[in-house]
């Protein structure tokens, strides 16, 4: 039972069977037949203003919902514009399927108009990629792409489709099975290893849970909470894992690493057992590797065997899906725990950790009577959102202050470019997240630099009536670079001043919605409330202290217990 259908229609049919409801994209010459067929399909298309933002918006969609996201671009420049968004998804293990058009098969290799070697260019930007030149292969390839993107360690998959495939006709036979002999996914975890791990957790005197993006990706926050409570260890989450354990959970001691909390880093230094769950011991977390957690044994659970032992040797590796492994660990923990008795070491450990938290709390108020401190801005956003809003960010100082100071009580609320650190991520990611969650408060916290990289998407917000609240933390600088120049290059500022920032009232007004600039602390709370309460998109430009620096800070390559906690006092001030 088969039907003669165009390649474009077959593609849409396959997408529908994968449950796709939205494509973020931008059309062009070779994808016109696909866009033509889309007119008759129930699948929605969101026309972004740059292909990079199609990939970022698809990521916002994925990161806020857990569903696979789809983006689409034409051949040549369309495809090359996608690349940053793909690498970004690769680094943060975000499942997106990218569809690109390619010149007709018979023109491939002839430097045809808008031809680029998309398959070659995106080889290292994707988990896997395909070039489809034969219409009969299309259905299986699409289903393989979705399966690969969303299983094992998730990631982006690109399917490059020639124009003749879009235009050609074939008898469409629905695919019911796919064949990937080289693709292996280990989910269950080794039973013996799981038992040994649980034993180690209960025997440790100073255990600590180090949880990351893997917990969010595998939708296993509940399983994480159960495990943390059974072990009763302090828990840090990486910048990718914020919200995996509720910020308000008593065992949560914030984020570790370069701009992590004092308590988190000291605990990482002092622990005797790291329970690493869906993390990759990134250099931004570990600082200098040979002085990272020098007294600790390591239990490392990850679905990707290549992560285990990559940066830090694992004393007890478990390869598996956290969603499957953590409940098994908890079951063994619950079984063994009664036999363990009073854990006096653990009590002393908690006392120590609490002392560190009190010594240098991350969330202590920083305000000024006449300037808006960046920390003040984040604290107000935190107060008003109470751990419940979706917050996206760009990359830089504002990102670190957001991660430090805004609480996230659920996963999939905090959306940022963790691994690649792509400026311009915040606005398009918020666009995708808002599209997928029309009833949620979605805030994009942007730097004045990053905002200007994705500014054209303001049109998309207005176009689709997307309620994104864009908050620009405007320090007039490429702040994070300026901070490094100040601290490590004798304050010789080179190309970090951002003058000529536009008047946001006029800018937002030009697109048809409201914008406002504030610079006095007295206006902060009301301005945020107004932004959150006004229907439709809103652009709020908050002028903050230009030269504030993010602390604590572990200088690049430094040891994590040697944090710089506060700005060095200038000699004059004494």
């Amino acid at each position, binding site marked *: 039972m088969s039907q003669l259908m165009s390649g474009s229609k077959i593609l849409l049919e396959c997408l529908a*069977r994968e449950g796709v409801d939205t494509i973020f994209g931008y059309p062009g010459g070779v994808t016109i037949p696909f866009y033509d067929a889309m007119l008759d399909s129930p699948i929605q298309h969101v026309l972004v203003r740059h292909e990079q933002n199609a990939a970022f918006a698809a990521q916002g969609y994925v990161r806020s919902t857990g569903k696979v996201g789809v983006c689409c671009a034409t051949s040549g420049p369309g495809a090359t514009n996608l690349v940053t968004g793909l690498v970004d998804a690769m680094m943060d293990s975000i499942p997106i399927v990218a569809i690109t058009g390619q010149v007709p098969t018979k023109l491939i290799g002839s430097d045809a108009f808008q031809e680029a070697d998309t398959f070659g260019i995106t*080889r290292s930007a994707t988990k896997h990629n395909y070039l489809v030149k034969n219409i009969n292969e299309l259905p299986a390839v699409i289903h393989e792409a979705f399966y690969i993107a969303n299983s094992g360690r998730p990631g982006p998959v690109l399917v490059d489709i020639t124009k003749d495939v879009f235009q050609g006709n074939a008898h469409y036979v*629905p695919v*019911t099975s796919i064949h*990937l002999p*080289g693709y292996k996914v280990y989910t269950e975890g080794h039973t013996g290893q799981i038992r040994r791990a649980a034993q180690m957790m209960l025997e440790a005197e100073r255990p600590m849970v180090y949880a990351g993006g893997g917990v969010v990706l595998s939708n296993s926050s509940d399983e994480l909470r159960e495990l943390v409570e059974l072990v009763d260890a302090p828990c840090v989450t990486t910048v990718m894992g914020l919200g995996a354990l509720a910020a308000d959970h008593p065992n949560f001691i914030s984020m570790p690493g370069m701009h992590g909390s004092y308590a988190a880093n000291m605990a990482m230094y002092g622990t005797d057992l790291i329970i690493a769950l869906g993390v990759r011991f990134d250099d931004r977390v570990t600082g200098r590797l040979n002085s990272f957690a020098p007294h600790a044994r390591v239990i490392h659970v990850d679905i990707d065997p*290549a992560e285990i032992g990559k940066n830090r040797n694992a004393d007890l590796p478990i390869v598996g899906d956290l969603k499957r492994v953590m409940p098994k660990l908890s079951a063994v923990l619950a079984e063994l725990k009664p036999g363990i008795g009073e854990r006096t070491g653990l009590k002393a450990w908690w006392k120590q950790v609490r002392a560190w938290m009190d010594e240098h709390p991350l969330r202590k108020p920083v305000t000024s009577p006449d300037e808006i401190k960046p920390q003040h801005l984040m604290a107000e956003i935190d107060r008003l959102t109470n751990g419940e809003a979706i917050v996206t960010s760009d990359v830089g100082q504002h990102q670190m202050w957001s991660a430090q100071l805004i609480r996230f009580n659920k996963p999939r609320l905090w959306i940022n470019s963790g691994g690649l650190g792509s400026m311009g991520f915040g606005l398009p990611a918020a666009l995708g997240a808002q599209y997928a969650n029309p009833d949620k408060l979605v805030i994009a916290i942007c730097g004045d630099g990053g905002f200007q990289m994705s500014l054209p998407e303001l049109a998309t917000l207005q176009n689709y009536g997307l309620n994104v609240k864009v908050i620009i933390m405007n320090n007039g600088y490429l702040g994070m670079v300026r901070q490094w120049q100040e601290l490590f290059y004798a304050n010789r500022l080179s190309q970090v001043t951002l003058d000529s920032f536009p008047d946001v009232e006029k800018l937002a007004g030009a697109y048809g919605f409201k914008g406002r600039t504030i610079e006095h602390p007295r206006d902060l709370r009301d301005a945020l409330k107004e932004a959150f309460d006004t229907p439709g998109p809103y652009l709020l430009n908050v002028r903050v202290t230009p030269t504030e620096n993010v602390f604590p800070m572990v200088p690049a390559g430094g040891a994590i217990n040697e944090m710089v906690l506060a700005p060095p006092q200038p000699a004059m001030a004494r």
Partner: protein
Amino acid sequence: MQQIISLLLENKTGALMRVTGLLTARGYNIDSLTVARTLDPELSRMTIAVDVEPHQRRQLIKHMNKLINVLQATDLTDAPSVTREMLLMRVRSAQETRTAILKEAEIFGVRVVDSTLEGFALEATGDIEKLDEFIDIMRSYGEIEVTRGGAVAVSLESKKLRLSPPVPRGAEETRLEEKNGVI
């Protein structure tokens, strides 16, 4: 130190690029790479000789195993295995050294595949060091031109023995309904 990696991979467009891309992305220079179809025409066997720091080796194998087109990557460097290479050589020889050259060829088990008034074309196989030695010796007889085939290796561990077809089919077919319930 040189690492010998044996790969079983799908015989598909781009599969070779994925493997070499993994190596070049890490700045490794490939000493030799051979690839050809297996008894199952859908699969290829590849042998790579590459210089990798010892502590990176395991990591590299894991990354190769992660490639979707790779069924199995094995580090044969220290494993029970046989590594062989083939080379073709042209040697120019004067009349008076012809016999000596033929004698050397015999000692090394090298076959003469062509003979002209100017010299010989020779075909040699053996382990890599032996071929190096042969080249050194032949150099002493005069001008030579060498084309080396690159290392090919096979594991001698019995559990790694792969018959035809090397991988049972059907078992790992992934039913779509199992994975996401939409079909």
